[in-house]
């Protein structure tokens, strides 16, 4: 049997498709999500209406969304940076945890130091810790050709267990000795709490501004530098990279360190901007790392678009937290995120191929 349609490779990609397709993907995901909602007995329009209201429709909603968007922007960049080289780092989750551990450590230790200094140290420690954790994956991939998808994922679980150990199962430096009953992290000093900036009356976390800078920096790095050129060639053809004398192994490690550093910044921002302590449970429930993959995919791995998409997905996620309840079942946000990811990978197909109708071959009428 033969299928009624066929795919024809596009030779060139019209420019409008690169933003049109993600937009279409988002719409399709929402439509399918709506169908799921309707089937399971919810009023889809009502649910979407409330998501919009709690995610974007007021100043307060936008502020909340930006707080969620900030770590997502970082984990999105973390995924984008690595995916662009064809290294599938899904360890943003763990790298973010470890970054948070590093940042909260200096945040606690440096109580009383000048504000700016503390903030910078938290950022640097977050980056260093995240970079170190990401490098493990990079080194294993570069040295032993070990599948980075699985190693980075296993390290996520290990980082989660490390968080549990630090806060729940030991009397570590990060645990607040004063808490009775349910253990929690030790609060960082006031000076480690990052300031917020008021822009058009909306208070924007410092971390978000740093994310924008980071997005710009990554964009420049990949577009304008030798390093970015090398990453691009490796992604296109590792054999061509070897042929051109590009040090592929070193570049893999460097990219993984960069990727981890970005996720680590996300962890630092979670501590500095938002929770002001190492929140083992909260971090693990947030799923920032995995959601970052959705963000990066929808942004088609463009660093600047990643920031924008992070706000969008951040709003959705934020509304999800706010609305959690019998009318708004848990799992809905993850389902919608999964649908967005599906439709954006399927959307890539439209970018690469043109869908054509199959015709039966025309037969010349031959009478013989």
């Amino acid at each position: 049997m033969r299928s009624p349609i066929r795919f024809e490779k596009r030779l060139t990609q019209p420019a409008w498709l690169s933003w049109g397709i993600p937009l279409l993907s988002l719409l399709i995901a929402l439509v399918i999500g709506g169908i799921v909602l309707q089937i399971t007995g919810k009023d889809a329009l009502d649910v979407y209406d409330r998501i919009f209201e709690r995610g974007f429709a007021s100043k307060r909603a936008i502020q909340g969304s930006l707080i969620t968007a900030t770590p997502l922007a970082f984990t999105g960049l973390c995924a984008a940076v690595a995916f662009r080289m064809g290294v599938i780092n899904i360890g943003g989750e763990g790298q973010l945890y470890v970054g948070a551990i590093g940042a909260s450590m200096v945040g606690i230790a440096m109580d009383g130091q000048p504000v700016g200094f503390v903030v910078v140290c938290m950022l640097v420690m977050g980056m260093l810790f995240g970079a170190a954790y990401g490098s493990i994956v990079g080194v294993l991939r570069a040295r032993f050709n070990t599948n980075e998808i699985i190693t980075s994922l296993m390290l996520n679980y290990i980082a989660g267990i490390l968080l549990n150990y630090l806060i729940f199962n030991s009397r570590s430096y990060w645990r607040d000795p004063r808490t009775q009953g349910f253990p929690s992290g030790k609060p960082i000093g006031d000076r480690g709490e990052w300031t917020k900036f008021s822009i058009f009356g909306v208070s924007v976390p410092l971390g978000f501004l740093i994310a924008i800078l980071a997005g710009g920096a990554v964009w420049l790095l990949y577009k304008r530098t030798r390093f970015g050129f090398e990453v691009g060639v490796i992604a296109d053809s590792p054999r061509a990279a070897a042929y051109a004398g590009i040090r592929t192994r070193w570049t893999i490690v460097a990219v993984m360190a960069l990727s981890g550093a970005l996720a680590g910044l996300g962890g630092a921002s979670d501590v500095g901007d938002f929770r002001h302590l190492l929140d083992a449970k909260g971090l693990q429930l947030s799923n920032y790392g995995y959601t970052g993959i959705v963000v990066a995919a929808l942004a088609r791995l463009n660093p600047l678009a990643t920031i924008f998409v992070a706000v969008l997905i951040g709003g959705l996620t934020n509304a999800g937290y706010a609305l959690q309840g019998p009318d708004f079942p848990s799992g809905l946000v993850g389902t919608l995120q999964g649908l967005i990811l599906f439709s954006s990978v399927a959307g890539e197909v439209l970018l690469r191929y043109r869908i054509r109708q199959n015709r039966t071959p025309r037969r010349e009428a031959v009478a013989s």
Partner: protein
Amino acid sequence: MNNSLLVVIAASAIFYGTPLFFAALGGVFTERSGVLNLGVEGMMLLGGVTGAWASQHVDGPAWFTVLASILIGMLAGACTGLLHAFLCVTLRTNQTVAGLAITIFAGAVGLSSYFANIWEVAKSPVPRPIRKLDVLGLGEVPVLGPILFSQNVLTYASWILVVVASVYLFRTRFGLHLRAVGESPQTADAMGIDVVRYRYVHTIIGGSLAGLGGVYYSLAIVPTWVDGMTKGAGWIAIALVIFGFWRPGLTLIGAYLFGALQSLGTTLKARNIQISGDLLDALPYALTIVVLVVVSTQFAHRRLGAPASLGQPYEREER
């Protein structure tokens, strides 16, 4: 004697290893056809939640309810397998991202949690769990009793399955064709083998086996649904496919090794042996990395290597 530590660990290695084996065997089939499935974790969870739901809602004799739960869980897995096949084979999307999408879509904070929530699956334990049997009354036989004769029905099914799967892969024509599709789809196509059909069928089988692994978690291990209860078992299963060199028998052995590690925490805690529980929890994940490093060296890779076309979509009219 049957309470000696080694016997208990051996018995629980099999008990905890069985769902890993199901999921990994599914992976063997899928990857042998050249399709990479990173959605196993999500497929397992979806199988687990639907199986638990069925156990709560299907009336009838106990065996019927259990059978229905198993089949419904497998069906849910098969549906996600179908979805994955559609994305990877028909749409030729990036297989890695498609698999991740399935895990995020169906996974711990996705559809499986959504279903659990709206169906209130987690409110009560599973009424008809899959219990351990006492085969031929041999359960009390020293050493072998707990290990071989007191497992549940799915474990025994897995032993049949490993034989069937090996024969299928290496002795039958279908297995030969399947391996050809995974090694060289161009060759298979030129020889008149329907590459698309083989990939679809085996991705769906893979999904249903992942679903079966999930059912095992919610019906045999915990007998209650908990969101995200597989805790990365799906990912370990993917690694197991690599350790098992894409062979059912070796995969079973690997699964039992990891089953032993997973059960170690519970077993030792029950005996008041003082080891950090966190360390034990982290062990399977850490060991996965270690073993993966060992088998991914050049030598092992060339020798017992992955299906050559793994992860690559097949296009006939490429030009």
